[in-house]
């Protein structure tokens, strides 16, 4: 059962990442968390998703993120500022709110008895078949979504490079 250690790792590394002071370190922790998530996906029988998590998420998205953060060339002052922004009291209300939400959602979720039925691995083939048969329009839509992001980013970035 590699699920549990992976899940634990994901939670811990995510917690470290979101509370971190140095964005670069935090992003690296986030990568570890994503890798742990990939393991979780794999354990859930979603091998395709696990691969995407590693290749796209950890491999592309976070690396892009890292590039940008490194471009920002954060200095000592930034680190000090970060220190003051993440002092204890800052977390009080957010954690309180999310805690309450968490309790409510967990209560609702775990109080629901779904009909007994064993989970089943969904193989990449099944995903691919569905994606390129009945849901082929979704692929088109996804490409449009990416196009929207691309055009927006292209337009907004242009002057910045000048």
């Amino acid at each position: 059962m590699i699920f549990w250690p992976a899940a634990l790792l994901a939670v811990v590394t995510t917690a470290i990442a979101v509370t971190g002071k140095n964005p670069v370190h935090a992003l690296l922790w986030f990568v570890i968390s994503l890798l742990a998530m990939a393991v979780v996906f794999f354990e859930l029988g979603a091998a395709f998703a696990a691969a995407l998590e590693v290749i796209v998420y950890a491999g592309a998205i976070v690396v892009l993120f890292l590039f940008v953060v490194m471009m920002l060339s954060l200095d000592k002052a930034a680190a000090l500022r970060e220190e003051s922004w993440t002092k204890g009291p800052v977390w009080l209300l957010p954690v309180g709110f999310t805690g309450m939400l968490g309790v409510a959602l967990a209560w609702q979720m775990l109080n629901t008895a779904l009909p007994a039925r064993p989970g089943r691995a969904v193989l990449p083939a099944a995903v691919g078949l569905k994606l390129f048969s009945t849901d082929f329009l979704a692929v088109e839509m996804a490409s449009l979504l990416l196009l929207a992001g691309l055009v927006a980013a292209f337009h907004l970035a242009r002057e910045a490079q000048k």
Partner: protein
Amino acid sequence: MIQAAPLAVQGIFVAVLLAAVAIRRSAPLAAAVTGVGFVAALCTIPAAMHGAAIAGEQFDLSGATYGFWAVILSVGFLLSVMGSGYWRGAKNLPAEEFFILLLVATLGACVLAAAKDVLFLFLGLETMTLAMIGMIAYPRHRPEAAEAGIKYLILSAMSSAFLLFGFGLLELATGSLGLADVLAAPNTPMAVAGLAMVGVAAGFKLSVVPFHIWVPDVYAGAPAPSGAFLAVVPKLAVLAVILRATGLPGAALAPGALHVVSVVAALSMLAGNLLALQQQNVKRILGFSSIAHLGYLLVAILAAGEVGRVAVVFYAVTYALTMVAAFGVLAVLSNAGAARDAETIADLRGLFWSRPGLAAVMTLALLSLAGMPPAIGFIAKMYIFAAGVHQELWWLVGTMIASSVIGLFYYLSMILAMAQRQAPAPAAAGMQAGGRLVLGVVSLAVLVLGVAPEPLIALVKAMLG
């Protein structure tokens, strides 16, 4: 698949537009292609409606959907015309991407409005949102636009996360991602929690209290044509979904949820109008006003029934026309190349003297927003009122009246500001013939439909079947 032709036509025109921009960068050409695209998509609607009925899995191709498509595409067309005039003022800003984003965002909205399936709902929604962020932050020389963009991006991503988590819970509870299956979920705690989270996200998109807080900043930071899009199109699309969802068999809300929606409606009406009271920025005022208007719309949704449904659609059309007119006046007055749009009440002061036509359009729009005859807003409000009375939603109807009174203050004080005598403001740069054309068409519609609304109402009834 003639039934989904409007979507296909839009998709084709996205490709055409991309090719056109790739071959020759020219804003008028891009605007023309976009406009033609919208018109072509609109023209396919009658044919699409008469196609043989099909039981598609992804899209609900009913009369109501075609109706919403028609409104969304018309708004898109009007904004493409308006945008071609607006962006001409910004010399160093290429405008072609704006039209790509406009076309893509409208396509996203159409997909969202028709989606019968969580996957398409989500993809349509996010395509629209992402393109909209680009439209909001479009004027690169304005830091406010970038700020508005990032505020919208982060808060809408937050709401998207709620939406997704909610649908995740619903899928876990029901095993399906079909909207009908999800909404007819057995009343398990998990499904209730999922629906609540989805409701939160819908609240964000409709920008009702308490999810309204981002509205004024984003409206104020966005350039006027994008503001018009933001104020109108996402709300229309989400309303289409809500209208369809509430019309599904077995989709009756739990009494608790009904009470929550009632409270949200009342708070939206009151807070929206109260917040607008002493504002000096017209875009912010329109933002707050939109909050109140969505509150009114929620009353119609709560009223349900045939009257309520007609009221929802009629009000949505009214709202779309009026907001396009109001933002359109700002767009015509503004210079996209300037540091900010003409957006404060001070910019409108004396407009009756310097630009009487524009002032008349703005007055008409404001009267319509205020729900005063002879503008169409009056009829629309009457319909909601009638629907509320029909269902005996007394305290909501009372709140509606009270908040309408508050609303009158700021609408009419804007009209008074325009009537004040002052040295004529310098005319905005650029010939905005397109913008003026849009305003002429829209204000004529606001007036004529306000005086003789029967044809539109008949059309709405026919569309809703």
